[in-house]
């Protein structure tokens, strides 16, 4: 299901950092398609709690996910400064686009692969397999995320279970 190479490979030297609940996170800039302001989403029925709904993104209908709920953080109000990062994951069935709601986008940072430190073991409960590593930028810790693992598994699962349910229904 996952691509064998992590989404942040040696050639990608830039990350986009964003803030969520006071913590800074980073993702591979090459995966980011656009950054847009918050607008009201259309709710979708029977969706997991962290899927807020869908938005029209230049003609495609893409799901919008709430990373706060995914990380079990306190809920925040969506305001005009709330930001959606539109990004994509690669799954077995092709590319899937989605947007994540974050508190704010900070910066684009050049990094050196050697700077990345391995993520600490957080125990079984931490489930840190979606953390690629940790970085220190300007004395702040940045958590590098692997969206393929963090979101890929769940989105695909959502789609697959509903698809198979549909096919069982049809059979």
């Amino acid at each position: 299901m996952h691509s064998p190479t992590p989404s942040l490979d040696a050639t990608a030297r830039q990350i986009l950092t964003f803030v969520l609940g006071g913590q800074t996170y980073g993702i591979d800039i090459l995966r980011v398609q656009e950054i847009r302001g918050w607008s009201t989403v259309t709710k979708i029925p029977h969706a997991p709690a962290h899927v807020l709904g869908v938005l029209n993104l230049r003609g495609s209908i893409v799901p919008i996910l709430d990373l706060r709920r995914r990380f079990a953080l306190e809920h925040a109000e969506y305001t005009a400064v709330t930001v959606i990062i539109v990004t994509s994951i690669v799954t077995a069935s092709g590319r899937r686009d989605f947007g994540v709601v974050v508190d704010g986008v900070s910066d684009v940072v050049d990094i050196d692969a050697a700077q990345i430190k391995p993520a600490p073991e957080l125990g079984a409960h931490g489930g840190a397999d979606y953390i690629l590593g940790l970085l220190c930028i300007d004395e702040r810790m940045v958590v590098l995320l692997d969206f393929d693992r963090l979101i890929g598994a769940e989105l695909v699962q959502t789609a697959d279970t509903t698809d198979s349910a549909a096919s069982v229904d049809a059979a």
Partner: protein
Amino acid sequence: MTVDLEQFHAAFYDESFEALATMETTLLQLDVGAPEPELINTIFRVAHSIKGGSATFGFTDIASFTHSLESLLDALRGGTMSVTAAVCDLLLRAVDVLRALLRARQAGQPIDAQRVADLQFDLEVALAGRSAAAPAQPVPARVAPAGARAPSQWQVRFRPHRKLFVHGNDPLRLVQALAAIAEVDAQLDAQNLPPLAALDPEDCHLAWTLSVRGPIDSAQIQQIFDWAEGDCELLLQSVPAEPAEPAEPVTPPVAVAVPAPPPASPAAPSPPAPLDTSAKTQAANGLADYGSIRVSVEKIDELMNSVGELVITQAMLTQLGAKIEGPQAEPLRVGLAQLERNMRELQESVMRVRMLPISFVFSRFPRMVHDLAQQLGKRIELKLTGEHTELDKTVLEKIGDPLVHLVRNCIDHGIELPAARIAAGKPPAGTVQLAACHRGGNIVVEVSDDGGGLDAARILRKARERGLIGPHDTPADAQILELIFRPGFSTAEQTTDLSGRGVGMDVVRRNVKELGGKIELASQAGRGARFTITLPLTLAIVDGQLVSVGTETYIVPLTSIVESLQLSAAQISRISAQGEVFACRGEYLPIIRLHSLFGVEPRARALHEGLVVVAEGDGRRVGLFVDDLLGQQQVVIKSLQTHYGHIEGVAGATILGDGAVALILDVPGLIRGASGRAAA
């Protein structure tokens, strides 16, 4: 300089598959015994162009096979071999093998060399049989020992096809080229020249017999006429050395105005076809000749998407324009109205690009019917009507398999054996008819046969055996016919490889339903059966009714809506804690509260405060409880599955004028879901 030929491969495959389809159709049109020369020429040209293409790309296996095929066709064309049913069959098999070869090449898979070699052998045997039977044929010059450099004499019979000029060839140039290396004596054969009134100046009606003298060999002559290959009949004969004649001045062919007595040529027997035949063939091949380009489907889809976006942007501007005040407001609104008209035209044009004639699907049937009829020992005539009816490519792709299934069923179960037909007082050949036409906003495809019709008693017996109905149920006739669409139903007494795998009609019906269409069946015992499939013209756009529930807007496809009404408290009854029903035209219909199903906070909770949309799906009706009706509009269907997944009860989504996303309801899905929950 090296040219990367690979870039042309795709075009070669496309053209070759198209050419093979032409060849197949033409072969099936060919009358055994009295073939039309134009048809044989068409087949020959097709084989020739595939040979040329494959040789260019170094596909030697295809080129070699086509070469054998071409030799056989050449014999047919030259009349030294007659068109028999066996030859036709051989040629049809050759088409199959060629197609398989091309597919294997395209997919980069190994070819079935044995099959190719077998058929190639058969072709050559057929050809050799002809040679043995007709040994008196003049030996073509190309197999004569080459390299005779000594002054020699040749007789060249050069009979251009009528369309020689169209392909840029000029007989004068060819003869002049020949005259440059040898002495040429040309005799004109003008016997095929039509009367002046019927003369088309763009057609070539002349032929020549050239006496060539000089130190040249056959290859050199052949080379000159290579330019006209496929556009002429050329017969090269070596003339036995004669006492040298006094050299005559080379006569330029234009000067030959005196009709010379034409030599009776045994190898050029095909008289020019009458005008109408040639026009017909040209129309048949002329589809791709000019005025069309190949465009990949993705590009068209991109175009569709962009236009969809433009429509939304335009709707947004119109909404804004309506609010603007001031001196500039009026001109702005005029401009926006103009934009709207132009947008609609643009959208329709782009939609039309995706429309293809249904002949793309129908064209596979003549061959299929031919093969099946032979296999089953039945005589079947296939009638196609309305092949030019156009429908959306997506619909077209998905309707092929159901139609194949229906036609197979007609042939396998419907049409009786010739003896049985004669006994029933019917002509021995059965008729299967495929008809397509536009009706309203839909396309209707009918598959009918004049066979035995459906045997209601047998269907009933089978349904009881399979436990589809109780042993003592006696359904009405219409319901009996319905039974064949049930999963697991098959009436074939013997399981054939044609049908009777038990996955028949239910799959057909499901496929048709997935396309948003419906299938109906009418049958008369002894007279035949008729399946009628009604399909939407396109899957990309649906007429929708916008309804509001709380803050959300949903779209109900208009085709599923029966009526909308406001309920009075007296109409509503409760059956259980959840089950609410209402009386509507003598029926009690269940109510689905959309707000509770989709988890939305509604404005109206009491049933008499909102509205009920009576919707139909899978033959059942329900009332959908909504807050309000908003309006009707055509909406462009967008997939939710591209980036998310399937949602129960939702067919897709669309983008409204203000840019917001609205979900399109899947009424049959909602009904299934509701009854599933009720049963649970």
